[in-house]
C-alpha cells in the first residue's frame, strides 16, 4: 500500500492544528533582538535569537511580530522604563503566542514585554563593562587627570543640530562675566548604532591636535531620552579612559549615570551643566587672582606702614639719641675737667706745701739764718768749736756773727754740768 501523500497546504494546515493544540496559551519567552524594523503601518517585525553563553553562536532563531496597536503602547513604556530603544542586541522578556501560517510560516506574536528583565540585563552588561575596565586598571585614568586651572579651549564632541549643543554654546559664549572661551565642535553622531564609532572617530580627531585644547566636552541633549546605552559601551568608555585630556560629559541622562559618565573626568547631567561648570572654573580662577591681588596689596600696605612707623621712630630716636649723646658727652667732659682740676690742684698744692716745708727746713739749717737769730759760731784754728774742752787760755778764737767776725783771746773757760772747772 502506497504511503499517503499530502499537499503542502495540507501538511502545513496539520502543523497549524498541532501547534494550536499544543501551544494554546501565551508564553513568557526570553530572547535577544537580532533585527527589528517597523513598517509604514506601524507593525513591528523582529528577528529573535538565543545565543550560546559560551561562544555567542546562535542556538535558536525565530521571527516575531508586534502589531501596531500593541507596539504603539509597548514601545514608549519599554523605552521610558529601560532607557533604551527596542533594537538589535537588546534582550527581552516578552509574552508571545506561537503562530503558524501556511503562507508566512512560524512566528511569535508578541503582545507584552516585561521591561524589568531588560533593565536587569542592561544593568548586568553595564556592570560587566565596569568590571572589565576596573580589571584592566583603566577606570580611573581620565578621572585622575588634573583638571586644567582655566579650561578655555574646549573640544566639543556633539552634533551641531542637537538642542543640547545650542544650550551649551549659548551658556559659555554669553557668560555674564565676559570670560573668553574657545569651543571647537567635532561633529559626531550622538545616538544610535553608529554613535560609538562616530564619537571615537571625533575623539581621534581631537587627539591629533591635543595640545590645542584644555579639555573635551561630550555633549548630547534634546535627543531621545531612551538612547543612552551607547554611553555604556566598553569601546567608548575605554577610549575616554585613555584620552590624554580631561573629558567632561553632559549627555542628558536622567537616571543612572552611564559608564561614560563614570570614567569621564567630570560626569555632569546636561550640556548646560557642563557649560556652567566651565564658567565656574574660570570664575573661581578669577577669585583666586583677586585674592592674590588682595594679598599683595595687604602685604605691601603692611610693609609700607611698618617702614613709615620705623622711619618715624628712627627720626625721633635720632633726635633723642643725639641730644642725649651731646648731653652725656658734655657732662662727661665737665666731670673730667672737674676731676682733672681736682687732681692737679691737690697735686700742686701738695707739692707746694712740700716745697714750703723743704724751704723752711732749708732756711732753718742755713747758718746765716741761725746766726741772724742771735746764735753765733766760734772757730778755733779754722774749725767750728763744739766743745769747751779743747780751748786753752790765750787761744785765739774767731767768732762768727751774721754780719761779721770777732777775733778774741781766751781769758777763762767754764765747764757746764756743775763741774765748773777753772782752767785759768
Amino acid at each position, binding site marked *: 500500500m502506497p504511503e499517503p501523500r499530502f499537499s503542502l497546504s495540507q501538511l502545513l494546515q496539520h502543523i497549524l492544528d498541532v501547534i494550536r493544540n499544543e501551544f494554546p496559551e501565551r508564553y513568557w519567552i526570553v530572547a535577544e533582538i537580532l533585527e527589528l524594523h517597523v513598517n509604514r503601518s506601524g507593525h513591528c517585525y523582529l528577528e529573535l535569537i538565543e545565543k550560546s553563553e559560551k561562544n555567542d553562536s546562535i542556538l535558536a532563531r525565530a521571527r516575531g511580530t508586534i502589531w501596531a496597536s500593541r507596539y504603539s503602547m509597548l514601545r514608549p513604556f519599554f523605552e521610558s522604563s529601560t532607557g533604551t530603544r527596542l533594537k538589535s542586541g537588546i534582550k527581552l522578556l516578552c509574552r508571545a503566542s506561537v503562530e503558524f501560517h501556511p503562507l508566512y510560516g512560524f512566528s511569535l506574536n508578541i503582545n507584552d514585554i516585561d521591561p524589568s528583565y531588560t533593565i536587569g540585563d542592561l544593568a548586568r552588561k553595564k556592570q560587566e563593562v565596569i568590571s572589565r575596565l576596573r580589571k584592566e586598571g583603566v577606570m580611573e585614568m581620565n578621572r585622575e587627570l588634573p583638571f586644567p*586651572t*582655566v579650561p*578655555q579651549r574646549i573640544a566639543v564632541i556633539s552634533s551641531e543640530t542637537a538642542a543640547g549643543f545650542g544650550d551649551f554654546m549659548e551658556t559659555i*559664549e*554669553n557668560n555674564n*562675566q*565676559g*570670560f*573668553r572661551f574657545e569651543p571647537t565642535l567635532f561633529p559626531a553622531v550622538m545616538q544610535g548604532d553608529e554613535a560609538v564609532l562616530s564619537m571615537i572617530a571625533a575623539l581621534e580627531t581631537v587627539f591629533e591636535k591635543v595640545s590645542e585644547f584644555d579639555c573635551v566636552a561630550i555633549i548630547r541633549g534634546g535627543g531621545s531620552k531612551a538612547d543612552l546605552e551607547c554611553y555604556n559601551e566598553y569601546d567608548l568608555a575605554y577610549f575616554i579612559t585613555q584620552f590624554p585630556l580631561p573629558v567632561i560629559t553632559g549627555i542628558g541622562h536622567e537616571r543612572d549615570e552611564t559608564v561614560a559618565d563614570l570614567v569621564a573626568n567630570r560626569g555632569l547631567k546636561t550640556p548646560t551643566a557642563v557649560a556652567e561648570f566651565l564658567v565656574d572654573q*574660570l570664575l573661581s*580662577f*578669577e577669585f*583666586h*587672582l583677586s585674592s*592674590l*591681588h588682595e*594679598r*599683595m596689596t595687604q*602685604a*605691601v600696605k603692611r*610693609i609700607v606702614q*611698618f*617702614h613709615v612707623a620705623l622711619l618715624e621712630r628712627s627720626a625721633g630716636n635720632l633726635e633723642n639719641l643725639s641730644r642725649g649723646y651731646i648731653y652725656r658727652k658734655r657732662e662727661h667732659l665737665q666731670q673730667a675737667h672737674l676731676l682733672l682740676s681736682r687732681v692737679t690742684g691737690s697735686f700742686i698744692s701738695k707739692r707746694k706745701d712740700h716745697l714750703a716745708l723743704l724751704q723752711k727746713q732749708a732756711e732753718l739749717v742755713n747758718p746765716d739764718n741761725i746766726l741772724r737769730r742771735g746764735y753765733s759760731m766760734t772757730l778755733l784754728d779754722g774749725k767750728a768749736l763744739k766743745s769747751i774742752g779743747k780751748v786753752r787760755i790765750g787761744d785765739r778764737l774767731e767768732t762768727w756773727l751774721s754780719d761779721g767776725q770777732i777775733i778774741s783771746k781766751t781769758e777763762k773757760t767754764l765747764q757746764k754740768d756743775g763741774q765748773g772747772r777753772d782752767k785759768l
Partner: protein
Amino acid sequence: MAKEEISYDKAVKEIETILQKIEEGELGVDELARKVSRVTELLKICRDKLYKTEAQIDKILDDASPEEP
C-alpha cells in the same frame, strides 16, 4: 606678545612665590617695587587671557544684532 605665552599655572606660581617673599618682608624697597610691578603685570596677563577683548565682545554684539544692509 611672547610674555603672554606664560601659562596660567606658571603665572600663578610665580605670583605666589613673589607674594611669599613680600610677606616675609625680606625685600629691599627697590626690589619690593620691582616685585610688585611684576605681580601686577602677571595679574594683567592672566586677566587679559581670561576675559574677552572688547573687539570680541563687539563681534558677539554685532552677530547678535540684526544684519544691516
